[in-house]
């Protein structure tokens, strides 16, 4: 928990626009992240959701967990659908058919729906400059279909389509740096967040919806089922991911980098990885390789921050 915020939970709205009774796994970090985002969004929003964990656990017919307008269509088109909704409101307000009530447009997708199959639609929406907030809930694999690898899966992690074995160490490629790809689109607001730091996350959501133009929020969502750790450790996993530098929290506001939390010394990545069975097969030399890469990337980030 952030050092200043021990009693801040009481100051947050008690409104839950994401209703309980959803079917997420026990201890799901993504569900918690959605809850935090929805608390920050309040009611005057329209949410577009990609196929994935969130959509499945929140919308089993004939029930819905959503207390705000919500639409799901396909897996890879959140960027396009939200563009359509934003344009519809823009046109109809301009033509005097409806009043401008400052409705905000938000897209939810997983790492699959963002950095893999959904990358094109997201890129198009950002390039065209639509006014929307896009939240990527990154649980580092295609979790909903059964823990298959994605481009967001970290190096060395076990997944069902990149399992470790005699010939393989698991994921053979490094995690795609999605926030950097978004920064290259020169949008006004890009940030990374984690539900283990709820107030930071909620602040960033608020900044994202207030900014004119596209905003992107990359939210690490610890997954007990896919990362294979006991469900009560979800918050701890998020904290360690940030404290080891594997998932630094930062913002890029109009191209300027700002670190959200700085640590005098990063914890060793092994502390994070040893708690998760998806990394348990890794040998010392691979862990060292990962540590080197994390340190290198963190240094690059620090350079941009200065």
């Amino acid at each position, binding site marked *: 928990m952030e050092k200043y915020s021990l009693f801040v939970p009481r100051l947050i709205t008690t409104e839950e626009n994401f209703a309980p009774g959803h079917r997420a796994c026990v201890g799901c970090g993504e569900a918690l992240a959605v809850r935090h985002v929805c608390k920050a969004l309040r009611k005057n929003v329209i949410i577009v959701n990609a196929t994935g964990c969130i959509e499945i656990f929140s919308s089993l017919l004939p*029930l819905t967990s959503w207390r705000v307008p919500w639409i799901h269509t396909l897996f890879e088109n959140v960027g396009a659908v939200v563009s359509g909704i934003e344009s519809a409101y823009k046109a109809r307000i301009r033509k005097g058919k409806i009043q401008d009530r400052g409705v905000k447009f938000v897209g939810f997708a997983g790492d699959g729906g963002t950095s893999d199959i959904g990358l094109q639609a997201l*890129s198009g929406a950002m390039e065209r400059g639509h006014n929307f907030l896009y939240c990527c809930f990154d649980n580092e694999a295609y979790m909903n279909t059964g823990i298959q690898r994605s481009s967001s899966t970290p190096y060395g992690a076990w997944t069902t389509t990149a399992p470790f074995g005699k010939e393989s160490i698991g994921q053979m490629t490094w995690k795609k740096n999605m926030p950097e790809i978004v920064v290259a689109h020169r949008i006004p607001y890009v940030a990374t967040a984690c539900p283990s730091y709820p107030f930071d996350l909620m602040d960033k959501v608020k900044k994202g919806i207030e900014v004119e133009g596209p905003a992107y929020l990359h939210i690490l969502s610890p997954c007990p089922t896919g990362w294979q750790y006991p469900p009560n450790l979800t918050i701890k996993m998020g904290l360690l991911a940030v404290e080891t530098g594997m998932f630094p929290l930062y913002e890029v506001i109009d191209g300027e980098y700002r670190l959200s939390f700085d640590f005098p010394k990063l914890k060793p990545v092994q502390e994070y990885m040893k708690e998760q069975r998806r990394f348990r097969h890794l040998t010392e030399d691979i862990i060292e390789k990962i540590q080197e890469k994390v340190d290198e990337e963190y240094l690059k980030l620090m350079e941009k921050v200065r």
Partner: protein
Amino acid sequence: MTKGRLVGLEGSFAVAEAVRMANVDVISAYPITPQTHIVERLAELIANGELDAEFICVESEHSAMSACVGASAAGARVFTCSASQGLELMHEVLYIPSSMRLPVVAVTANRALSAPLSVWCDHSDAMAIRDIGWIQIFAENNQQAFDLTVCAYRIAEDKKVLFPAMIHIDGFYLSHVVESMILPDEEEVAHFIPDYVHPFVLDPENPVSMGCFGPPFIYPEAKKAQEVDLENTKPKIQETWNEFGEIFGRHYLPVETYKMDDASSALLTMGSSGETAMLAVDEMREEGKAVGLIRLRLWRPFPFKEFREAVKDVELLVVLDRAISFGMGGPVCSEVKSALYDKRKDLNIVGYIGGLGGRDITVEGFKYMINRALAYPEKEEEFEIIGVRE
């Protein structure tokens, strides 16, 4: 009572005029030959302030249809158009407006599918989407391209319909050929199409959830509801065409007949080849053959009743397909046989496939089909692809 002015317009520009007069709110489209003139003209109209709409220059056809879905769900009147590869790229998205009951109106400039790459006309792209649940209507000339697009808005957005509608115009033959046509008065057209009001719109004042997921205990019920409602759009389609006829003077039917009163043989066409077929029928009549022509305008939902009525007195039906369903034959011919099997075991149905990839269909070609079918009643093959060099 034909109101309006006589103009010469390409099919693409006729469509663009219809979309402009319908005062759409959002257009999202990706260019592809031979539809490009439609999107270019629309972009020009918007840039010149002649149409107040958002033009989303999407990065692919998949996104084009997705953006239309979003905009329609948010209460906007939308338009998109595509062809061939583009229509195929948006294939999975096409299911969404039909099952989520969003009145997206689209135009397809019928074009052949790769490989080999072809930008020319055939109906493969139209046939590939026939199972999805869109209202599909075929235009035969530029006047119809305009009229049917205007009617499509009124049909699709009607509270008793709320289904997406696709108007098919033959690529190049209609999209790029200037034909004379009547352009009706703009205000009359605007008056003909009422405002779009969907019962459930994405709006924070009244939150709804759209696109929830349906396990086996509910999916079949959802599909039955969709099919029954699609069938029930037929009266509304005809009602709209009737009203259009009364105001603008051009009357449309799901199945058009030409010189069928005393015909013993009939040709069946869809799209622009129907006008060529009319010439062939005239010539064959002069030669003393009792030939007529049936032009199928409403493709989906299939007009079983009107179609069976049209063929009730003929002994031979020659179907021209402008697409091939590999391993099966002509898709229109297969469906026609299926529509008539229980009712007309006595009718000889002969299928030809022609005009693939933009190969012209000629008056001689139609005469060949009829003569060949008459000369060889006992068919050796399931169907024949005509006009192919050996």
